[in-house]
């Protein structure tokens, strides 16, 4: 039983990160904090994917010249890598938009900068 506990810790952490991010989306109004929420959500998902692919004592999945033993799964790592790249561009775009909103409104509080409602 004891040996399974360390395995679950990454999944718990991933769930916590996703939970924190959802909390931010629901209750925070500062636009920068919303951008941070996206970053945290993305980290949670990345951690989840990496933890999925990890095998205890595994080696890097390079087919040429590997030592004997279990390999970690390569596909989740490829997914994670793609997601990191995408998240970087999304966050860059979001921060640009926050910058423009700040220039126009002089504020980054979502409650105050509400031109669009109804």
């Amino acid at each position: 039983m004891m040996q399974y506990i360390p395995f679950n810790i990454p999944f718990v952490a991933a769930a916590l990160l996703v939970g924190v991010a959802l909390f931010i989306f629901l209750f925070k109004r500062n636009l920068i904090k919303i951008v941070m929420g996206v970053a945290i959500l993305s980290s949670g998902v990345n951690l989840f994917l990496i933890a999925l692919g990890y095998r205890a004592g595994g080696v890097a999945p390079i087919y040429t010249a590997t030592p004997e033993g279990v390999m970690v799964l390569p596909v989740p790592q490829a997914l994670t890598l793609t997601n990191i790249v995408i998240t970087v561009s999304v966050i860059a775009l979001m921060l640009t938009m926050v910058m423009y909103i700040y220039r126009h409104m002089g504020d980054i509080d979502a409650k105050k900068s509400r031109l669009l409602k109804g």
Partner: protein
Amino acid sequence: MEYLTVHSPILIVAIPLLAAFIIPLLSRLGSKVRDTFNVSLLGFVTFLVAILAIDIYANGARIYTLGASVPELARPEGYMVPVRIMFQVDGISIFMGLTITVVALAALVYSLQFVKNETGQDRFYSLFMLLYVGMIGLVFTGDMFNLFVFLEILSIAGAGLASYRVNLADAVEGGFKYIVISAVSALLVLFAIGILYGQYNLLSIAALANTMQFNTLDMIALAMLAIAFVMKLAGVPLHMWAPDTYAVAPAGITPMIYMSSAASMYALYRVTFTLYGGQFDTMPIGWVVIILGVLSMFIGVMMAIYQTDIKRLMAYHAISQSGYMLLGVGVGLAVLTDPVALANYGRDAMNGGIFHIINNALYKGMLFLTAEAIFFRIGTRDLNKMGGLAHNMKWTTIFFIIGALAISGIPPFNGFASKLLIYESVFRFNPLLSIIAMFVSLVTLASFTKVFYSAFTGPEMPAYREVREVPKSMIIGMGIMVACIIFFSIFPGLVVDTIVAPATDALIDQASYINGVMGAAP
């Protein structure tokens, strides 16, 4: 020709993707060169989509595997499961592909004059092509991970385009809402993909559907996927971003962003029908989709009534019309496991719902274009400040009347054809739903009558005496859509038989989707 047919799935995605990065270079040669290049390129892609469509309607679904010695070879020799990146184009995919391409062509032609005086046009067209690639890839792809990647491509390009006019504060705000919603929904999709991959070690949709166990984790993944796609298609509890983003996006882009919502709707259908179809009882999911549809229909149109901003009003109508599609296909989903009910009315309901996707893309897209044509000339979207525009903008007025009649489901326009299919078949499933749908249609007519009276009729207003008709490319852009609307209105039966029925069959027939990749069942 044979070569083009075989390779068309990848060419349709690759050509605009490459063009997106060539366009900034071509802009150096002058705007004439760039515009000619864009239109002829999208024309060529339309041609490719057409030959792919003809091939699919004649010979059934087509698979394109990247990196395989033969593109149709889904599984490498000696492997039990598909491991390569794959496009799997069947009836519903090519149906969405055709819709998206027609809308994109009209929107591109319209945009030529519309953004003529703006700065950063090369980036505008780059993002336009990327948005097109994202949508086409989303509907063509055969594996879950590329679904996520294309979802992100269309989100980023769409958000960039929605806030293209950064000099307007509300444009940036609308774009920001869109990217937040998109990022959250895409990450939810990725999380669900992680759950599925963790259990089955598979990413291909067909292989996943083949081995699906329907345990608790799968249901959690289904809930996440459904929430993500409903968020992206602006179904009612999660629709808050749509009016903001639709209202502020530049004219040619609003129909495109609307189409990206429709592509997300396709993803929802693909997941519920193909990935989770089969032995599983789909009645509860069907009812969830139906209730979402009814809520979207009703709340969307009720919110539309009191809007004074013409584009926000149309955006709420777009949400309301999405409800019809969800309702029609939801009824089909609810009775999917009951062959008698499916044959009696389920198939017709789905035909109606799917036919409504293309009808709505045409007339709703066209109405967005007319709204922005007004904004282009008089510089306001406020209905209370408009009046008497029919005196000077004759083409826009005629196009608006056609679109308004079509969206309200007035015979003989195409909106009537698809709505009639939905009313009749849904009535046999549950009469109350059908009555709500008819009521919503009436309110839609009332709302568009209001727009018509306040914007176009009345005496010529002194402030708008100098207003002229919009430039020629904008009229041609709207004209492409009107031509399609009129064609669909005259021959609804032909359209349903040729392109809608194969799409419905492709959704219902999960086994052939799986067999296309996994080979016939042993």
